[in-house]
């Protein structure tokens, strides 16, 4: 029987590790910010090379801190699981921690394969925020699972849901960046080819080109087309997993509640999320919809995912309401 005794010592270790995880991630975030700041200054400095070195060193340190934070994070969820003798995703707090862990993992895997260090700042910021909220607002004491959750399908179903959600989080971040960059590119072009060129080669912009001046961060980001492809790549990784999560959930529901699908609010919002991302995938192949409008659909999908996890669990109650905060 799981949960007959809870190891409070280990549960405490898990909590401490999470605090250190947040610290490491926050420092990493600063590192990524420093990388950007020094890189920008290097463009104007007399001696750009030394600035560039500082910049890339800051970036490397930030990556190191991310990996360190990731290891602490793995330690935190592992000790949590050991302390309650079960999988560490039984309530909203544990769940949010796992989703952030997946998001960081996806980022690190991307980093190993592509040049995506620019994403560091934008992935770490929401992760730090999310973990902060999870550790305070959503925090739930270590405890065992209710019988309905005590099945190996929950492991399959929830692992899939968490993996997909962590990846959707990363794609959401990239999509926001895409939308910003896309708008910036349109505006810069509309200012005339001179302005765009000035920004591209990194000439110090003059006061008369305010758009280009504001484009510091924007100019630094990869071009919109690449961001769009990156967002699509992450969604196309996450979407089949989300599909599988819904199916595994239906199989579990069939065993636990005697019906595969019952339009319970949680099930329904998972389907709405799925439909929104399916619409996004379609939009990318539909004339007049690809680009900005498709990106908006993808963000709507992410919004639905958040509703699925947080609004449904707290405001709308259904059979899944055991996942609540208390």
């Amino acid at each position, binding site marked *: *029987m799981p*949960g007959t005794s809870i190891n409070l010592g280990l549960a405490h270790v898990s909590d401490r590790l999470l605090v250190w995880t947040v610290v490491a991630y926050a420092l990493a975030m600063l590192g990524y910010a420093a990388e950007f700041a020094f890189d920008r200054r290097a463009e104007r400095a007399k001696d750009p090379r030394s600035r560039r070195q500082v910049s890339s060193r800051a970036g490397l340190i930030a990556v190191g801190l991310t990996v360190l934070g990731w290891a602490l994070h793995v330690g935190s969820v592992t000790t949590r699981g050991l302390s309650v003798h079960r999988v560490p995703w039984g309530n909203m707090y544990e769940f949010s921690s796992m989703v952030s862990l997946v998001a960081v993992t996806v980022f690190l895997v991307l980093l190993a394969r*592509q040049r995506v260090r620019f994403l560091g700042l934008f992935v770490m910021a929401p992760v730090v925020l999310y973990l902060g909220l999870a550790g305070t607002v959503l925090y739930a004491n270590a405890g*065992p699972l*209710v*019988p*309905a959750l*005590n*099945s190996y*399908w929950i492991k399959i179903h929830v692992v899939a849901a968490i993996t997909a959600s962590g990846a959707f989080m990363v794609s959401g971040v990239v999509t926001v960046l895409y939308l910003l960059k896309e708008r910036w590119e349109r505006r810069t072009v509309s200012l005339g080819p001179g302005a765009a060129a000035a920004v591209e080669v990194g000439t110090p912009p003059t006061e008369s080109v305010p758009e280009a001046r504001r484009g510091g961060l924007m100019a630094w980001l990869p071009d919109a*087309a*690449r961001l769009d*492809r990156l967002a*699509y*790549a992450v969604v*196309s*990784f996450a*979407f*089949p997993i989300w*599909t*599988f999560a819904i*199916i595994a959930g*239906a*199989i*579990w529901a*069939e*065993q*636990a*509640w*005697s*019906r*595969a*699908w*019952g*339009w*319970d*609010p949680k099930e*329904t*919002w998972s*389907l*709405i999320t799925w*439909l*929104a991302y*399916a*619409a996004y995938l*379609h*939009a*990318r*192949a*539909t*004339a*007049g*919809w*690809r680009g900005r409008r498709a990106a908006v*659909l993808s963000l709507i999908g992410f919004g*639905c995912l958040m509703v699925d996890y947080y609004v*449904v669990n707290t405001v*709308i109650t*259904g059979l899944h309401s055991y996942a609540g905060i208390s």
Partner: protein
Amino acid sequence: MTDLADTPIASPEDTTALSTAPAPPQQPARGVARTLRYGWRRLTSMRTALLLLSLLALGAIPGTLLPQRGLNPVKVDDYIAAHPHLGPLLDRLSLFDVFAAPWFAAIYLLLFISLIGCLVPRIRLHARALRRRPPHAPRNLLRLSTSARWTAADEAARIAAECSRTLRAGRWRVDVSEEPDGAVTVAAEKGYLRETGNLLFHVSLVVLLAGIALGGLFGYKGTALVVQGQSFANVRSSYDVFQPSRLYSDSSLAPFSFTLDRFTAAYQPDGTPENFDAKVSYQPRPDGPVTTSDVRVNHPLHASGANVYLVGHGYALRIQVRDPHGRLVYDSATPFLPDTSMFASHGVVKVPDGLPHQLGLTGFFYPTYVATPAGPDSSYPAPRDPVLLLAAWRGDLGLDRSAQSVYSLPVASLHHIANAQLSPGESWRLPDGTRVTFVGVDQWATFQVAHDPGKNVMLGAAVLIVTGLLLSLRVRRRRFWLRARPAPAGDSSRRTVVEAAGLARTDSERFAVEFSDLVQRLGAPAAVTTEED
């Protein structure tokens, strides 16, 4: 990246479309047939699919915000009572039955008609593409964004042969042809599984819907309460609640039966449930072998095509009633229905025959009795200190007049005799000499039996949906062309001019790398002109 998705349905000549996605419909000329065809094209266009997908998602939202009859009819009634103006209006729009609403059905049926209409031509095109040779090289290869040009000493035919060998080894589909001007071209394509996966995915969606429909038309489900030690036989009269589907017939009830041998529940110290277990002896046919099995919360019994789920439990109290002469007139484990999570329960005993008057008992049962300022209650769900509070009533129970619940008594028309508090083993003597004995505590369990003939179809479709998606989203479809043209007659260098180009719809970064690897293996210098926009 060259934009390919916009291109109309791949015609045999079309070299750049890598998918069979339908093209946006063009405005038709006049005429009824033309208009109809235009309408059909519209319905089966990507834009319509997109619209209907979004509408379906939007339409589902009210079903999660408003109470739904299918989930909780009581909440719906409460809501309508609390909103006398809005409630009936919402009800008329089926907003309390969203998932059974005609407008919701209209959206998904249209979506699936659009899907089928879109799939049929796409499957045909793809089948043709699978049999066809890779499309010919465009005239000007260097116009494509991923392209390269170099010169080589080898003859054009040898370069082409070498190229086709390399590509075949990499499992490309290759076609070599000679052009009138002496140039030799190689056309190759790879990743057909992407489109196959996409079509498999969409077809499986239709199969999934068919599976759902099958269950909705031919399935049944019902619940029955079984007291420990008693049996359940799968006939319609055994059910307390029975929900047949539209085309159900009694012949779909498999003739199985089972006996509830033992029910156990385990709780945590604070009374939250930890584990339930119903041990049953199961017989697939009246003369079949008996096997024992455990039915638990996540572990239904698979009974000849139906599943038997444990959905609830409670206490059945063994109560005996003897007439003043000591003759037994009532002896039964009487199910009590739980009212609280600690299983404070209520129940009724009806003794219509054997006594001078009809006798009724209303009871409240507390598995772990505590007296609170608000009255008696139970502090733990297991029977640690069971107490039964009884009230005896005399009069006409009205059993012959109207169907009534076995859990209630028409006390308004009865005469109250006396009250008692009993522990297991205790007896209570009524003023007229009738003796009521609380013999002991048994348990009951409720089982839901569900038969869904579409289940395996749905499961199969689900597996194919995921398989199709993985293929469709992971496999990259790409084309490659090479043209080797002998040097013009007057050219003293005598070198063959080689041009190569490639096209990929997704993941162009990876394709650019693959392309430059490929052309380098074919003899291009390292600094090959691959560019990207």
